[in-house]
């Protein structure tokens, strides 16, 4: 088998791209179906998905090995549409980035609500496609049997949604605390602690389903590719430490915290702090997941 070609830059790109799609879906969903209760979440979803996809693209482009000799060659990636899945992905991600940018601008300028809703529907489809694409790209790579499972795109999608949820929540707090002038809505919202804790609590509740689902999907995924070098490396070989860290801190800690908040009535500030920590760990877990799968496939 060929030596590894994709490393930490591509892992970061897959992570940020998947998370961007997830964050957009969460934001759009809560705006379209939230009956106006979740506007900060909707705004945060748009802003953070834009930042995440742009950062992801930077990592992707930095990994192109001919960047230094032919910087504009990157545009060639649009050519082989629709035969090459990577070319398809390039179009999808470009369209998604544009829609995320427009949504962000319209929110910031308090633009036309109908137009925002229209963009949100479009962006949800593109965001979903972006997230799933990061997995399909790997599952089509026939030289790497470990990636060759139809469950991999779903694993990345579920993880994209969960990390996206985490990113929007963390985004709310960061914008409110660090850059209140970007959008006053956040600052005002964050002043009302009871509202914040209520929202975070219900988000945690909602996140219980994707967390369980991710645990299920990751186990099924490994089952479908059991016997490949990568599967052994992941479960008890060189990468197992990372993998278990992902399972524990990326999923279980968050799950326990959410269930605890759900069952016990905890104090407001503890809820806010707890869910922020939990979601930060989810993000770290999401990154580790991309990294171990990328490396394991190339062993």
């Amino acid at each position, binding site marked *: *088998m*060929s*030596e590894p*070609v*994709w490393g930490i830059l591509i892992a970061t790109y897959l992570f940020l791209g998947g998370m961007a799609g997830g964050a957009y879906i969460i934001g759009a969903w809560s705006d379209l179906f939230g009956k106006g209760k979740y506007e900060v979440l909707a705004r945060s979803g748009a802003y953070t998905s834009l930042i995440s996809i742009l950062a992801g693209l930077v990592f992707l482009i930095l*990994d*192109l*090995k*001919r*960047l*230094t*000799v*032919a910087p504009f*060659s*990157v545009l*060639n*990636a*649009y*050519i*082989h549409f629709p*035969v*090459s*899945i*990577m*070319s398809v992905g*390039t179009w999808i991600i470009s369209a998604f980035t544009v829609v995320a940018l427009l949504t962000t601008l319209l929110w910031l300028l308090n633009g036309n609500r109908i137009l925002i809703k229209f963009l949100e529907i479009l962006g949800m489809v593109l965001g979903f496609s972006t997230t*799933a694409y990061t997995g*399909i*790209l*790997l*599952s*089509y*790579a*026939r*030289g*790497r049997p470990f990636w*060759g499972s*139809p*469950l991999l*795109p*779903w694993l990345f999608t579920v993880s994209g949604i969960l990390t996206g949820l985490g990113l929007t929540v963390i985004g709310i707090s960061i914008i409110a605390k660090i850059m209140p002038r970007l959008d006053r809505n956040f600052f005002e919202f964050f002043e009302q602690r009871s509202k914040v804790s209520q929202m975070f609590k219900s988000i945690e509740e909602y996140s219980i*389903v994707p967390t369980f*689902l991710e645990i299920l999907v990751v186990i099924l995924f490994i089952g479908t590719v059991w016997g490949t070098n990568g599967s052994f490396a992941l479960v008890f070989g060189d990468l197992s430490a990372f993998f278990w860290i992902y399972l524990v801190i990326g999923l279980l800690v968050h799950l326990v915290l959410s269930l605890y908040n759900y069952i016990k009535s905890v104090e407001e500030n503890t809820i806010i702090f707890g869910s922020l920590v939990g979601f930060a760990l989810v993000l770290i877990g999401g990154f580790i997941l991309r990294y171990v799968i990328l490396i394991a*496939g*190339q062993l």
Partner: protein
Amino acid sequence: MMAKAVLVDLRRCIGCRSCQVACKRWNDRGATATKHNPDPKLEWTNPSDFSPQTYTYVRFVKVGKGESLKWVFAKVQCNHCIEPGCATACPTTALIKTKEGPVIYRKELCIGCGYCINACPFGVPRFDEENKAIEKCTFCPERLSEGLEPACVQACPTDALTLMSLEEARRKAAEAEAKGLYTYGLHEAGGTSWIYISETPFTELGFPKVGPEAPAAFNLRMLENISIIGAVGLIAMGGLWLYSKRRSKLEESKRGES
């Protein structure tokens, strides 16, 4: 020109490595320090893998043990798939299949994404960090167009390598298969333009096991399975949601009664 192919008859190969040397000479590939192959079955193989400087090499495989031990020599290179995985994956069309047979690389289009390396089912392409280019066997298109054989084919003293039309190569391989011999490239990945015949199963020679689907069919099947899983998942989650809704309603009405 008709589509060309090379039939590789492993029964005729004596392991002289003339092809290996001819390839280096013709393609101006330098000598590189090689590594000892850690697999005892393959320890005589040198170089032991492809590299930007090595488009082809002869695998020296020990088959069997003790009295029945025998050598099998197997030259490997890009198989020039009829529908190449690398070219299908390539987002820029830097890699394309020509109708003459060779899968060629056009550096000026390449962005260096590395996807072809992951997509080739046979683990062939390599990235040359120095020249910032993908390197692999070219099937000597510049020689074919002059009516010459590829450098390796011309150098082979035993005719283990023969250039012919793709049709003929496929026919000969099919005949060999009917006689109980093993083939590689007749079915693998939808068929390749370099086709092997051997008395020894290719799994014993360490050739990767590759299914018969061409890349487009492989990708389509993958996408179908992805969609089926999605549909099943959605239905299951929808069912669970309805169930939990009904249960909470029932509980409410019970509470109302008592």
